[in-house]
C-alpha cells in the first residue's frame, strides 16, 4: 500500500496522480494500479508518467469504473501498486523524436526525462497532439529541444521522420501506424507503445495479445513497447 500525495485534475477528464514512495521503473513500463478491494475485479494497467526519489506519478484519463475511482482519490488515500511490469522503450543514441497523441503522451514524459540524461542522445524533440487543449506543455518543454503541439489535427503533419534516428510513439493505433508507415524505407527506427485490455499484467492469462510478424506477443510482458514495423495494427 502507498499513499496519495496529490491527484490533480488537468481538464478533459485527465488527472495526474502522485503517489508517495520509492518506486522502480524504466521509461515505457507500467504498474497495475488498484485503489479498491474486490470490485472492479481487475487492477488497471497505467504507464509510468514520472518517477522521482520519493514519488511516482501516473497521468490517466477517466474512461470507466476503475479510473473513475482513481479520479476520486484524495491526499493520503491508499493505493496498491504492482510492478513495474513490461518491456519499455530501448536506450538509444542519436536524434530522437517522441510522438504522443492524447493520453498517449503519458509515458513520453519519463522517456523525455531519461533520454535527456543520456549523453548519447544528440537531439530530443517532442510532438504532442490533443483534440481540444494541450496539457503539461511546460513540463515537456523542460526536456525537449523542440516541442511541437498540434490541436485537433494530425500530430504527424509536423513530423519529418528523416530528421531522426529513433521515434518513440504512443497514442491511438491509427496514429502510431501512420508514424510507422512514414518511416518505412528510411533508416529511422520506430518503437510503439501498445495499449490493450489486461487482466494479470504479468504474462500469464493471454488476454492482451498483440499480433506481430513473429506471432502472438503478450502486450504486458513482451511489450507494451514493440518495434513498430513488427506490429499488425487493429
Amino acid at each position, binding site marked *: 500500500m502507498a499513499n496519495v500525495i496529490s491527484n490533480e485534475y488537468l481538464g478533459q477528464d485527465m488527472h495526474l496522480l502522485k503517489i508517495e514512495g520509492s518506486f522502480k521503473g524504466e521509461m515505457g513500463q507500467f504498474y497495475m494500479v488498484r485503489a479498491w478491494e474486490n470490485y472492479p475485479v481487475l487492477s488497471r494497467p497505467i504507464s509510468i508518467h514520472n518517477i522521482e526519489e520519493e514519488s511516482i506519478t501516473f497521468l490517466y484519463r477517466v474512461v470507466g469504473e476503475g479510473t473513475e475511482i482513481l479520479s476520486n482519490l484524495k491526499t493520503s488515500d491508499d493505493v496498491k501498486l504492482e510492478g513495474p511490469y513490461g518491456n519499455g522503450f530501448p536506450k538509444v543514441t542519436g536524434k530522437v523524436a517522441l510522438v504522443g497523441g492524447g493520453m498517449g503522451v503519458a509515458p513520453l514524459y519519463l522517456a523525455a526525462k531519461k533520454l535527456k540524461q543520456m549523453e548519447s542522445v544528440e537531439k530530443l524533440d517532442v510532438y504532442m497532439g490533443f483534440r481540444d487543449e494541450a496539457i503539461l506543455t511546460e513540463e515537456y518543454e523542460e526536456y525537449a529541444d523542440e516541442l511541437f503541439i498540434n490541436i485537433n489535427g494530425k500530430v504527424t503533419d509536423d513530423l519529418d521522420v528523416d530528421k531522426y534516428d529513433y521515434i518513440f510513439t504512443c497514442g491511438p493505433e491509427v496514429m502510431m501506424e501512420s508514424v510507422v508507415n512514414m518511416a518505412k524505407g528510411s533508416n529511422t527506427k520506430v518503437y510503439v507503445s501498445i495499449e490493450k*485490455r489486461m487482466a494479470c499484467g*504479468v504474462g*500469464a*492469462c*493471454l*488476454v492482451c495479445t498483440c499480433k506481430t510478424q513473429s506471432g502472438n506477443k503478450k502486450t504486458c510482458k513482451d511489450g507494451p513497447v514493440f518495434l513498430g514495423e513488427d506490429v499488425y495494427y487493429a
Partner: protein
Amino acid sequence: MPNLKVKIASAEFKNPIVMASGTFGFGREYGEIYDIEKLGGISTKGLTIKKRDGNNGIRIWETPSGIMNSVGLENPGIEGFIKNELENLKKLDVTTIVNVGGATLQEYVDAVNLISKEDVDMIELNISCPNVKAGGMAFGIKEESARNIVRVIRNITSLPLVVKLSPNAEDIVRIAQVCEEEGADGVSLVNTFKAMAIDINNRKNVFENTYAGLSGPAIKPIALRMVHEVSKNVSIPVMGMGGITTWKDAIEFIMAGATCIQIGTANFMNPSAGIEILEGIKSYMDKEGIKDLSEIRGII
C-alpha cells in the same frame, strides 16, 4: 502444525491450493513475483495437440463481480510445451497438473499419449472450455459423450486423471458419476459459465465468438452449490473452484466437500492470492484447533 497434505490417486499435494488452468501460465510469470513453491499445485494453461493462436478481438470484459474471457485456448501445443516449458515446471517443488483439451476424440488421444510419456503428476482432462470447439465443452455437456471420452483416455494413461467439468453440463452430477464409473481419479469443477456481453453503442457482440466464459466472485455461490452436489454423489476426490477469492471462500468449498481448491480469477485481483488464502486457512485451522482438513471436509 496442522496437516495440509492431500492426495488424489498417486498425486500428492503439500497443501490443497492449486492454481487454476489458464490463469497461471506454466508457472514462470508469477514465479518472478513471489515464492510459488509454497503452493500445492499448478494446472497448466490448457494444451492441445496442435499449437493454437487463440481467438481474435476482445478477450476480456469485466462484469459486476466477475470477468468474461475469450482467450480461445491459445497455447504452444503439447510438443511446444514439452520442449520449452516442462523442464522449468518440473524443477518447481509443486505438484504439476497438465490440462489437456481437444476438438476431436483423436486429438485428446494424441495429446494424452504424448504427455503420458513425461514425468508429470496428473492430467486434468478439459471437457469444459466454452470458448472454442477445441475446448471440448461438447464432450462435457451430455453424459454419453463424457463417458466415451473418459473411457478412452483412462485406457491409454496410467497417470492420475482428473476430469474438469463444465457448469454448462445438462446434469453435472451425472457427468461426475460417469467420470467415476469410467475410472477417473477425481473431478475438478467448475470451469467458466457460458455468458455474453453486448456493446449497445455499436450494436454488436463484444466478443467475436459471441459467447465467452464468466468467472470470478459472481459465480462463487453457484459453483459452491455444484461442488456440494457433486461431492455428495461421488466417492472420488473433488477439486473445487469458481470465484474463490479469500480463505473463507476456500473453507466453504472444503466444507462443501472439496479435497483441493483451485484459484483462478483471484490471481488477477491479487497476484499473491494463493499464498494469502493458504495462510488464512492455516490461521483458521490453528484458531479452531483443526489438525487435518479432513475434520471439516464435506461436513455440510
